[in-house]
């Protein structure tokens, strides 16, 4: 579906104005100001993102990033009223309801609308997009992710209601059967067009899961229970664990969707001799594993310095039943090499330039912070984990280490990948194919980095 520039602007203004009205209805902004500013923000977004929101999923991410920037540039800092000092933590905490409101009422609907209106025709040279495939694969991914999630030893109060946290009633059972596939199917419809590799899909899933935290526990669930929206800091604080849970669930949906969808594309599209790659998938995967391992080891060096300074190594040693610093050091580098190999497999051809590589690396570092110190690490050491704001606060030094690790891993990986590309570019046909397969500028990757990194880092600080 495509529309004229004026049509998209009008749609943007209308959705922005409506979002402003919803904000006013939720009591977080004055009606007149909210509707006017919402309409202006909507029109501006439509003008800026019309060429970038190439589908509802891409639009959603750009919309969320837009809402986040509005919050950062407005209520949380520069345009703050009252002369209370710029950028203060207290001010940001008090404007938390507006953050939730902007994301849900302005950013998400605005992005999906503009993306749906402005989506160009699909590229005929690529695999065909299919609504049926998106729904089937997405639904299966949602269901499997929920089943996996149910297997995790997550405290019931932290689980999303549809993932086994709402008792054994018939309604709860129905929710578990119906809601996860629905969430997965919506993910498929939104993001199938933007799927290139496993890593980016994992990123879309992560942002999607974070959005569901705002939409589910903070909005829909209290509304269904007859309470108002729970957008206050006090209401959100005990739900931080559910934020991690939703992020991990989204991450699982993203990865599973990518795996099944890529298999589908591999079996039914890339296996066609007319579309088969000259460089086999196996060969590129092996190379990516090697480059990723090297990147991971390089990333482990600065991370080790942070771990040494924060005294984390003895805990790492305990993973293999030792208390030696040297053993902890070795285990750390082994894990880093494996995580680096993971990066290599997940993020093949995702970065058109070094800046993009660092962006993906930071997201990967954040993912490992959620999966490592918050989940696997305590689980392997003590048999249980807590996704509470306190455990997140205790793991904050490690967060910086993981971000640095991700950035350095990505940087080294990208340098090695480019070195290999120099070979391939000797053949102009191969060079053209590589250029086509590499993520171009214009996809919603920057929006993803901003949303995921900001929410992933700001929320534990704000809610703590």
């Amino acid at each position, binding site marked *: 579906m495509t529309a004229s520039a004026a049509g998209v602007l009008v749609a943007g203004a209308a959705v922005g104005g409506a979002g402003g009205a919803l904000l006013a209805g939720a009591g977080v902004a004055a009606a007149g100001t909210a509707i006017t500013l919402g309409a202006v923000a909507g029109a501006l977004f439509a003008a800026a993102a019309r060429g970038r929101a190439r589908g509802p999923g891409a639009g959603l991410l*750009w919309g969320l990033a837009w809402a986040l920037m509005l919050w*950062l540039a407005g209520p949380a800092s520069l345009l703050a009223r009252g002369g209370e000092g710029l950028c203060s933590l207290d001010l940001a905490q008090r404007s938390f309801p507006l953050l939730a409101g902007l994301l849900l009422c302005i950013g998400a609907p605005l992005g999906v609308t503009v993306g749906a209106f402005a989506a160009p025709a699909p590229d005929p040279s690529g695999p065909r997009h299919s609504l049926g495939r998106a729904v089937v694969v997405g639904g299966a991914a949602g269901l499997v992710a929920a089943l996996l999630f149910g297997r995790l030893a997550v405290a019931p109060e932290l689980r999303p209601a549809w993932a086994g946290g709402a008792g054994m009633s018939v309604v709860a059972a129905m929710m578990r059967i119906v809601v996860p596939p629905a969430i997965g199917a919506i993910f498929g419809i939104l993001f199938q067009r933007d799927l290139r590799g496993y890593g980016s899909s994992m990123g879309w899933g992560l942002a999607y899961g974070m959005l569901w935290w705002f939409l589910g526990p903070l909005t829909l669930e209290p509304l269904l229970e007859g309470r108002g929206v729970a957008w206050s800091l006090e209401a959100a604080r005990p739900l931080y664990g559910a934020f991690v849970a939703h992020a991990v669930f989204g991450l699982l949906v993203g990865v599973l969707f990518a795996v099944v969808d890529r298999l589908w594309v591999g079996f039914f599209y890339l296996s066609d001799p007319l579309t088969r790659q000259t460089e086999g998938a196996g060969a590129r995967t092996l190379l990516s594993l090697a480059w990723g391992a090297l990147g991971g080891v390089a990333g482990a060096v600065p991370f080790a310095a942070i771990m040494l300074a924060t005294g984390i190594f003895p805990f790492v040693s305990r993973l293999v039943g030792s208390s030696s610093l040297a053993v902890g050091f070795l285990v750390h580098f082994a894990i880093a090499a494996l995580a680096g190999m993971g990066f290599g497999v997940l993020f093949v051809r995702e970065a058109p330039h070094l800046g993009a590589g660092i962006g993906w690396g930071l997201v990967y570092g954040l993912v490992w912070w959620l999966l490592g110190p918050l989940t696997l690490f305590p689980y392997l050491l003590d048999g249980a984990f807590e996704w509470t704001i306190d455990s997140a606060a205790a793991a904050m030094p490690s*967060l910086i280490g993981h971000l640095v690790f991700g950035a350095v891993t990505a940087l080294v990986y990208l340098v090695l990948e480019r070195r290999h590309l120099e070979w391939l570019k000797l053949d102009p046909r191969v060079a053209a194919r590589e250029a086509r397969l590499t993520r171009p*500028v214009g996809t919603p990757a920057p929006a993803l980095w*901003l949303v995921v990194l900001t929410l992933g880092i700001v929320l534990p*600080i704000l809610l703590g």
Partner: protein
Amino acid sequence: MAERPGDTARPDGAAARSRTRFLPPSLRRRAAIGAVGGAAGGLILGATLSQGWVMAGLGVVVGAGFAAAVRPTRAAYLDTTVSAAALGVPAWALSSVILLPLLAGDQPQWTAEGMRGVFPALAGWLVYGIVMGFLVQALSDLVARVAGPESEPERPPRPEPTRVLILGGGFAGVSTAAELERLFGPDPAIAITLVSDTNALLFTPMLAEVAASSLEATHISTPLRTTLRRTAVVRGRVAALDLDRREVAIATGSASVPAAAASGTVTLGYDHLVLALGSVSNYFGADRIAAVALDFKALGDAIRIRNHVIDLFERAESERDPARRRELLTFVVAGGGFAGVELAGGLNDFARGMLAYYPAIAASDLQIVLVHSRERILPELSERLAGYALERMQARGVTFRLRTRVKDARPGAVLLDPPDELPTRTLVWTAGTAPSPLVRQLPVECDKRGAVLVDATLAVPGRPGVWALGDCALVPDVRTGKTCPPTAQFALRQARRLARNIRRATRGEAPEPFRFDALGALCVIGHQTACAEIRGLRFSGLFAWLLWRAVYLAKLPGLERKVRVLVDWTIELFFPRDIVQTLDVTAPDRSQP
């Protein structure tokens, strides 16, 4: 002809490029734009946060780094602004959380409480990113409009590439090309061309398994066009070679068409010529033997042998005369070296395995005869291992005629010396090889077998830029003073040395001599049985067989081929060998119009 680049150090384009690669003009321009954008954003940081000047300075540095790392795209305001805002997060982590506290003599602020303390800086860095990103995009577009788009780094005029022409697509030639690719990488200053009469590299150690229907024929051949990444492959045969003019005429017709009768000819010039023409079967002038014997050198030979054996079984099944049936089912292999022994062992397994499906044929009708002129087979191995091989193969049904030569042959019989006559329809010749006859036509010095004489650096004396290796060359072994044996193991190592010497020549350095200690030898003699001698250690039986498979599977070029061969071997564990006849051996060759 211009001065040969191989003789002197050529103006090195790579070195010149490395000088401009460090901050090329486009990168300097981006960094300057980023610094301006970062300075504007830095004003926000400086005005709103403590340590104002430091923060403003950091803003300039981060802006320059960001712009340099992100390739500009026209009017990508949203992308650049949002990317810069996102990268504000690591900028905050590195500066406000770690660097500034350390500079102030404090601990990094990476605890939750510490981060809350520097939260205003996070918001500041994010807003900084928004402002800086927007300005970088606006300035990039403005500068592009005023000063034009970014220019590519100025490259020095590229010299004519050094042309390396490799004649021969066997182990020696392909390994030389692969090593040159590895050494020169994507450097466009060298152009490599390989001429081969087939479009694939045949992995000869597994050829006997193809003849014995254990492996699919194409699984042991690796296509040259997928193996070599930057080498131009020309399928054809050498029609004429002019060493003075440095030109080679290539007949590009079908491999089965003689060079003289080929339809098309291309002429290729060279700066370095590598002769890797390999060897052919040597019948020592016995034309009648050559007329009836099957060769065992190429993939087509192995396919022909397999189909021939199946064809004879089909005919023997309906043959009522016992003498004629024995004649049909007598398979003679001439030569007791590696090739002959492995082929005899493989054919023995294949033929005896087929008996189950041909009820009219008795085991006693079948004969696999290996004729060898010396006292013992496998002269490359120790006497003990050769004895083991003989004993095991005899136990499995192979008949040996030692100290016996194939003197003559005619359709239906092989004549031996000491005098004897073997009624047979099958003679496979592995008893001798000779360097490619093309070598003798060249104005270079050859030994009596027809191999090119080269010095220890693999260079042809008196012919600068001409090199030779492998089966077609007589390579001196500087360690022993003898000559290197014409084996694949030596050809591979010679290829590596030769490629390095060509690189040294392009740099104006002196070539180095070839040195190599043979690792050992491996030979399969039958089902799950082999002999191996590695660095003086001897192995036999199942372990040696596993070693053979592991070593050669590892050496087989290409992951895809490895997987295919592994699958073939696995299938063979559970299913009988394929006896489908895929080639009518009696049909004449036909050429397409």
